[in-house]
């Protein structure tokens, strides 16, 4: 219907009769690009607020899920059911002293948290939240996602190195080793999807999963690529750096790993980036394998409802993956770094290659046509 959120906003403004007069005014002034800039800024502002609210909600949800699994209450005092807890956490973190170790590299130490946080937000740009609900449908969307998510280890390395702390340095080194080992199977499993769609655009990947087989099985890639899904999911959890793969921080071994020396808002940036990552990586899993915002028979809905319903479907699926990651965190211990690396190099990469090979072969001989 609409290519992206920009067009949706223009349509809405048109619908309520604002767009034309404003556009004409800017046109007569010869600055019609200003309106475009304003709409894009509004989009970015909405996305930013959405991202921050999501992160806040996830910090609350994580504690509630952990509480449910571990037979405790979780936050329950501030606000109804403790919903204001993330706000209080924010207030507390802002009030904390900002400490920089005497022998730290001040500039790098200060820059690193931003370098972690900004890419975590940039990932949101090509995510298809619903039909027409995308900031920018990049033709290389998938490549962009993988490339941007590969930036955070560099920032982690900077943070670990600049802290001038041995534990931090070890955490940073682990982050790099882990990221290199797991980006490869992650990318290879994603390529198998590209073979089906012939496009790197996230919107086209979702559109390709519209419809059903036999009238009831959704045409999601998880059914065509079960092995690819498992590999992608494992690699995603490793990329998120969550238990059982939380080596970069691994409290019990490296105190807090790369962010041992960080306090206050700088620490909060790492913390927020982790949750932004949790959401975005889960969203990518949903986009690639679980049909994104699509759902069988969604096209039967009235056209005006589709963006809203598709957004709901997308969020439900994403939160299901997030719940799985949280559940996993509460159930299993952390693997050892050498076990992680051998799993990545000796099992996941060969399996991902095999998956790609078989997919390519089957596509060539026409099984999936």
């Amino acid at each position, binding site marked *: 219907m609409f290519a992206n959120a920009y067009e949706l906003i223009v349509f809405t403004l048109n619908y309520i009769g604002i767009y034309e007069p404003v556009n004409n005014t800017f046109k007569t002034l010869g600055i019609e690009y200003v309106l475009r800039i304003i709409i894009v800024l509004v989009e970015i502002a909405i996305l930013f607020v959405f991202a921050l609210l999501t992160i806040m909600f996830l910090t609350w949800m994580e504690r509630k899920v*952990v509480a449910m*699994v*571990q*037979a*405790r209450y979780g936050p329950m005092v501030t606000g109804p059911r403790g919903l204001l807890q993330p706000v209080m956490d924010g207030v507390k973190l802002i009030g904390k002293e900002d400490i920089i170790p005497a022998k730290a590299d001040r500039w790098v130490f200060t820059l690193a948290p931003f370098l972690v946080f900004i890419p975590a937000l940039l990932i949101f740009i090509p995510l298809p939240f619903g039909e027409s609900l995308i900031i920018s449908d990049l033709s290389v969307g998938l490549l962009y996602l993988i490339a941007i998510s590969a930036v955070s280890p560099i920032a982690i390395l900077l943070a670990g190195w600049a802290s001038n702390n*041995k*534990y931090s340095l*070890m955490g940073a080194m682990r982050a790099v080793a882990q990221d290199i080992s797991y980006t490869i199977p992650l990318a290879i499993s994603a390529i198998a999807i590209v073979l089906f769609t012939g496009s790197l655009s996230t919107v086209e990947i979702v559109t390709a999963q519209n419809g059903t087989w036999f009238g009831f099985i959704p045409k999601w890639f998880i059914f065509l690529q079960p092995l690819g899904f498992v590999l992608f999911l494992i690699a995603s959890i490793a990329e998120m750096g969550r*238990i*059982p793969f*939380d080596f970069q921080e*691994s*409290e*019990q*071994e*490296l*105190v807090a790993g790369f962010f041992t020396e960080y306090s206050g808002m700088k620490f909060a940036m790492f913390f927020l980036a982790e949750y932004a990552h949790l959401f975005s990586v889960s969203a990518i899993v949903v986009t690639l394998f679980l049909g994104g915002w699509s759902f069988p028979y969604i096209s039967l809905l009235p056209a005006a409802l589709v963006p809203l319903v598709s957004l709901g479907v997308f969020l439900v699926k994403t939160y299901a993956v997030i719940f799985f990651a949280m559940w996993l965190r*509460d*159930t*299993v*211990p*952390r*693997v*050892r*770094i*050498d*076990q992680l690396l051998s799993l990545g190099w000796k099992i996941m990469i060969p399996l991902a290659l095999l998956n790609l090979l078989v997919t390519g072969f089957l596509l060539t001989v026409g099984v999936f046509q």
Partner: protein
Amino acid sequence: MKTDELLINMGPVHPSTHGVLRFKLTMDGEIIRKCEIVMGYLHRGTEKLGEMKTYMQFVPYTDRLDYISAFPNNYAYTKAVEELAGIEVPLRAEYIRVITLELNRIVNHLVMLGSLLLDLGASTMIMYGFRERENALQLFEMLCGARMTFNYIRPGGVREDMPEGFIPKLNEFINDMEKRIDDYEQLISGNEIFMGRMKGIGVMSTQDAINYGMTGPSLRGHGVNYDIRKLEPYSVYPDLDFKVCVRNEGDSFARYMVRIDEMRESLHILRQAVDQMPQAKPVSLAKYGIAPMTGASTAVSTYFPRIFTPPPGEVYSRIEAPKGELGFYIVSDGTIKPYRIKIRSPSFCNLTAIPKMVEGLMIPDLIAAFGTIDVVLGDVDR
């Protein structure tokens, strides 16, 4: 490839050193080349304090040695004093003591399991462990009012009889625990990641384990059938049927499994103790020839005076504490205070084996192996 070695101080304040312990690690990347243990950050001079107190006054100090399992510490000291002074304890009191000792063994192992899994990065078990521990603590609270430094067992018996409602609550706990242990096994023992972290890690030969003076479950995981409850039976253990839990692999997984087995065995002992415990409440004072205190409401303790003088002599008395052999060596010079007290604590001896276990392994392995040794620093630094 030649690499530089890195010296890392793990502790004395570190999330996984279970208190204030310091490992000086010489690292080659993530491989531990040398591990040196530095202790003494919690040293309180307890043994010296014991020589400045009367025999009875020293009892509360023993609660604070291994603060996870205060009853066995209480009992080990009490047993030594009783042997030194030749005091006989009523049978019911002995049964009550065994009940507290075995309950405390379960509590100790629950804390150990919880902190081991927490050390490995899985936080759920510590919550489950502390949930069940809470039920046991309520029982302890009924007995002595305390929830951590239980001070209940003392020379001559126990402080007072079990309160009403204790036994039904204890039975409830036993029934509940049996199911809970199955849950733990389901959550932990069969977990692939857990096995990958524990099997073949922190391996030590049986001979080495013996040479380092390891005792308790940590030693029994190395295939040594060594349990003081069987070797030198004390209290009413000879009247109870139980088996010594032994595993042969000598790795972290074996040491973990011994604890799981022991919890089941302790429940078995508790059931028997509840059934066999005499209902009558005899008081045994004859040997010391001291009249009961007036106005005493219960009849389980032996109405022992607060100040007494054992005959000159010495004694080394030991028990099978949850962590291993806990012994008290006491020298009496015939005065109201001990001339010398020396404590043989299990945590200290077991801990010394760590460097042998972990050299050549990685930091995560050190944490796994250390967790299975079950060390409490109050028990190391006395």
